[in-house]
C-alpha cells in the first residue's frame, strides 16, 4: 500500500498535438477552403482582412463512408420514459427518415455544413497559396550586401575568445592517455620489479637502483604536458551571403478630386493585399505612403486613406518623390523594393509621357516589382492617357505590370493574376 501513484504533469508538454492532423485536414480540403476563403474576402472590410476566419465546408464532402443500415426494413427500438403508451398503440411514423421514435437520434449527419475557424496563418496561407513574389531573384545573387556569420566546425588557429574548451580538453585528454600509456606500462613493470626485490630482501644497492629507475619513469610521466599547442581547437565561423529579408513597399496614390471614395477603397484593398502578401514573405516590411495631387507628399496611413485633399494631378511628382525617398533611405542593395501605384489615370498634357519615361528609366530598374492599378470611372471608360503611356513599358520591363480594376470584388482576381506562380 505504501508509495505514491505515478503522477505526471503534462501541461508543459504543450498542446497542439493535433496540429499535424489539422494541417492534414486543411491540406485535403484545400480546394474547397480556397473557395470559401475567396468568398470570405469579398465580404470583409479592409481592416479585418488580416485575421482568421470562419469557413463552411459542405458536410457531404468530408463524410467518411462505412457500411451502415439505412432506413427501412423491420426493427424494434427501446426507449425510456414511457408515460401513456400501452402495447398495440400506434404512432405516426416521424417524417424525415430517422429521428423521433425510431433510429438513433443525435447521431449521423444532422449537420449540413462543417463550420470551422481558420487561424490567421492558415487563412493567409490558403489565401496566398499559389501566389509567388515576382522576380524572386534575391538580392544577394547580384552584389552581396548582407552577410551572416555561421558556424563551420573547428580549426587549429584562432583568437583566444574562440577557443573551444570542450574540444581542446578532449584532445588533451586523448593525447595524454596516448603518450603516457607506454610510460605507465614501464612504471608498472619497474614497480613490480622493485616490489619483488623488496620481497626477497635484495641488497640495498639493487633496491636503490630499482628505486632510481622508478623515480626516473615517474619523472618522465610528469613531463607529458597537460596542454599542448596541438590540442588547441577554435570555433570556426564563416560569412555566408544572406538574402535580404526586408522589403519596402511604396504605395502611390492619386488623391486628386477625381479619385472618389469608391476608387480609394478599391485602391486601398489592393494595397492591403500587397502588404499582407509581402509581410508573409519577408521578415520585415516597411510601407511608405506617397500621395499626390499636383505635388506629392509622404504621409501616414490614416492621412493617406482618409484625409481629403483636392487639386490637380501631376503623376510625375509622386514618382520623383518616391525615387528620392528610395535613394535616401532604401538603398537598392539592402532592400527589396516594391511599389504599387493606384490612380484613375487622369494626367494632363505631357505629364503622362514624362511619368512613363521617368518610371522606365529611374524607378523600374530599382524595383523588384512595380504594379500599376487603374481605377477607371466605369467598366467601359476609355483608356486614360497614363494607361496608354505606361502600356509602352510592359513589353520592355518584365517587373512591371498594370491592370484595370472597377469593383471591389475584382481586386482579388487581379491580384492573383499579377502574382500568380509562373508555370514551370
Amino acid at each position, binding site marked *: 500500500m505504501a508509495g*505514491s*501513484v505515478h503522477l505526471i504533469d503534462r501541461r508543459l508538454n504543450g498542446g497542439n498535438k493535433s496540429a499535424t492532423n489539422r494541417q492534414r485536414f486543411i491540406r485535403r480540403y484545400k480546394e474547397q477552403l480556397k473557395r470559401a476563403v475567396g468568398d470570405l474576402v469579398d465580404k470583409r472590410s479592409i481592416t479585418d482582412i488580416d485575421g482568421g476566419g470562419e469557413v463552411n465546408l459542405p458536410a457531404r464532402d468530408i463524410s467518411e463512408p462505412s457500411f*451502415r443500415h439505412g432506413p427501412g426494413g*423491420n426493427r424494434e427500438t427501446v426507449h*425510456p420514459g414511457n408515460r401513456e403508451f400501452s402495447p398495440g398503440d400506434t*404512432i405516426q*411514423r416521424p417524417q424525415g427518415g430517422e429521428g423521433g421514435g425510431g433510429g438513433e437520434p443525435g447521431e449521423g449527419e444532422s449537420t449540413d455544413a462543417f463550420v470551422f475557424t481558420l487561424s490567421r496563418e492558415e487563412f493567409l496561407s490558403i489565401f496566398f497559396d499559389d501566389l509567388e513574389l515576382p522576380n524572386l531573384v534575391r538580392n544577394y545573387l547580384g552584389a552581396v550586401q548582407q552577410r551572416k556569420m555561421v558556424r563551420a566546425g573547428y580549426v587549429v588557429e584562432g583568437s583566444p575568445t574562440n577557443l573551444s574548451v570542450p574540444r581542446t580538453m578532449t584532445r588533451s585528454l586523448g593525447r595524454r592517455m596516448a603518450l603516457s600509456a607506454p610510460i605507465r606500462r614501464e612504471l608498472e613493470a619497474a614497480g613490480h620489479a622493485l616490489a619483488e626485490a623488496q620481497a626477497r630482501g635484495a641488497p640495498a644497492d639493487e633496491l636503490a637502483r630499482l628505486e632510481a629507475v622508478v623515480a626516473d619513469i615517474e619523472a618522465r610521466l610528469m613531463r607529458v604536458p597537460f596542454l599542448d599547442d596541438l590540442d588547441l581547437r577554435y570555433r570556426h565561423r564563416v560569412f555566408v551571403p544572406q538574402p535580404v529579408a526586408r522589403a519596402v513597399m511604396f504605395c502611390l496614390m492619386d488623391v486628386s478630386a477625381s479619385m472618389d471614395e469608391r476608387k480609394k477603397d478599391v485602391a486601398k484593398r489592393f494595397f492591403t493585399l500587397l502588404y499582407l502578401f509581402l509581410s508573409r514573405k519577408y521578415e520585415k516590411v516597411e510601407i511608405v505612403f506617397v500621395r499626390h495631387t499636383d505635388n506629392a507628399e509622404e504621409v501616414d496611413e490614416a492621412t493617406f486613406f482618409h484625409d481629403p485633399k483636392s487639386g490637380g494631378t501631376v503623376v510625375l511628382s509622386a514618382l520623383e518623390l518616391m525615387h528620392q525617398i528610395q535613394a535616401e533611405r532604401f538603398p537598392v542593395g539592402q532592400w527589396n523594393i516594391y511599389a504599387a501605384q493606384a490612380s484613375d489615370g487622369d494626367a494632363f498634357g505631357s505629364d503622362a509621357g514624362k511619368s512613363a519615361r521617368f518610371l522606365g528609366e529611374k524607378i523600374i530598374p530599382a524595383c523588384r516589382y512595380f504594379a500599376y492599378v487603374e481605377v477607371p470611372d466605369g467598366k467601359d471608360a476609355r483608356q486614360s492617357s497614363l494607361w496608354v503611356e505606361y502600356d509602352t513599358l510592359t513589353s520592355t520591363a518584365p517587373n512591371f505590370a498594370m491592370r484595370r480594376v472597377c469593383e471591389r470584388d475584382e481586386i482579388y482576381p487581379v491580384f492573383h493574376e499579377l502574382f500568380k506562380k509562373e508555370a514551370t
Partner: protein
Amino acid sequence: MSAGIQVRGKRLPQGPDWTFELIDEYEREIRATAAEFGLDTYPNQIEVITSEQMLDAYASVGLPIGYPHWSFGKEFIRNEQAYRKGAQGLAYEIVINSNPCIAYLMEENSMMMQALVVAHASYGHNSFFKGNYLFRQWTAADAILDYLVFARRYVMECEERHGIGAVEEVLDSCHALMSYGVDRYRRPQPLSAREEEARMSERNEYIQRQFNDLWRTVPTSGSGKAGARKRSVFPAEPEENILYFIEKHSPKLAPWQREIVRIVRKVSQYFYPQGLTKVMNEGWATFWHYTLLNRMYDKGQLEDGFMIEFLQVHTNVVTQRGFDERGYGGINPYALGFAMMRDIRRICETPTDEDRHWFPDIAGGDWLKVLDFAMRNFKDESFIAQYLSPKLIREFRLFTVADHESKSYLEIDSIHNEEGYRRVRRLLAQHFNRDVSMPDVQVVRYERDTDRSLVLRHQIHRNRPLVSSEATEVLKHLVRLWGFTVRLEAVDAEGRLDHYRECTA
C-alpha cells in the same frame, strides 16, 4: 472533541483548488478504500493536462499516440468548435487501457473532480480493463503503447517515402472498412514447425497402415468434374474480417500498404472490446466512484461540501432523459450501467420476492462476488440479458417501438408490464448486440483463377438495407485496396440474391 463523534479516518483537506500533493493524498486514500473492496487494478499513472491537450486526446479517439490522418484533424476541429461555443463540455477524464493504466486529469477541474476522476478512471475503468474477459482476450495492455509508437513511426516513414497523398489514400480506404477489421473469435494459433512435422508423420503412418493396393484399381471417372468445382471457391469459408482478408490476399498491395492495412486492423481490434462493453464499463466505473467516495464519506474523510458537489456532478452523469424530453439521445450508458450495478447489489443485499423469482441464484448472495463475476464474464448484450431486473425496467419506464416497413405507422410493441419484461429485456440486449446493429458483410469469393474479382455478401437482416450512397463509396475504397473488381451481393434470409452492386477497378 465530543465523545459521540467517532472519527475513523483522517479528514482530507478540502477546498476547491488542487495541488499535486493533494491529489497524491486523495489517491492514497482512494487506493486504500478500493483495497477494502478488493478491486484488482493495473498500476496507475495519472497525468495532468490542459483542456487543449484534452481536445488533442479526443481527436485521436483517446489514444495518446496516433498516426497522422486528416480525419483526426476533423474530429479535433469539430470538438474544439463545439467546446468553444459551449455546446459540449469536455469529458472530465480519459483513461487508456494500458499497463500502467493512464488516466488524464484536466487542469481546470476542482479537487473534488480530480478525486472523482481518480476513483472513476484509475480504479473503476482500470479494474474493468484488467478483469473483463473481452479486454483480457483482445487487448494486450502491456504492448499497446509500444505498438502505437511503432504504428505512428511506420506511417510517417511511409509518408516520407511514398508521399503523404499515397499513404492518405490507403488510410482512407482502411478507415472506411475499419469496423470490418475485427476478429470476433480467436484464430487458432498457427502450428509450429515441429507440430506440423508430428502431424505429418502421424498422417503418413496412418496412410501406410491403411494402404491397400486394391483402391488403385477403382475407376476414377467423374472425379475430374468434382475437383474443378471444388477448386473454384476460395476462401473455403466466408471471411468476416475484410481487412484481414485484404491484408493477406490482396493481389496488388505493396508490402508497405499491407502493413498499413494491418496497423488499422490492429487499432480497430484494440477498440473492439470498448464498443461491446460501453454500458458495463461506464456503469462499473460510475458505480465504483460512487461507492468509493461514499465509503470515504462514511469514514469521515470527506466533508459535506465535497459530497454535495460530488453528488451534483454524479447526478448529471447518470441522468436518463425520457424519449420525449429535450436533449434525449438514446439510452445513456452511464445511467443504465450504474443503475444495473447498483441493482445487482440491491438484489444481493435486500432481495424482494420478485428478485428471488427472477434471480434465484444471486438474490441474497455476496454482492461483491456477484458483481465481480458479472464484470469479468459479460459484455453489454449478455449483461443486460442476464441482469436487467423488472424493477429497473419499471424505473426507466422502458418501452419498445416496432418499426416495420409494411406498416405506415409505428406500433408500441411492449412496455414495462408483466407480459413485457422479458421482451423489453431481450430487445434492449439486442440493441447492444454488435452483430445486429452492424450490417453483416463478409468476403465469400475471391476469383483467383479468372478475373481476380472479390465478392462480398451482405446478408440482409430483417429487410434492412444499407445506406446506398455510402455503400457505393465504401466499394470504391475496397477497389482501391483490392485492385480489381469488387462485387457486393445482397442476399435475403433464404439465401437468394436480392440485388448486387459492383465497382470495377
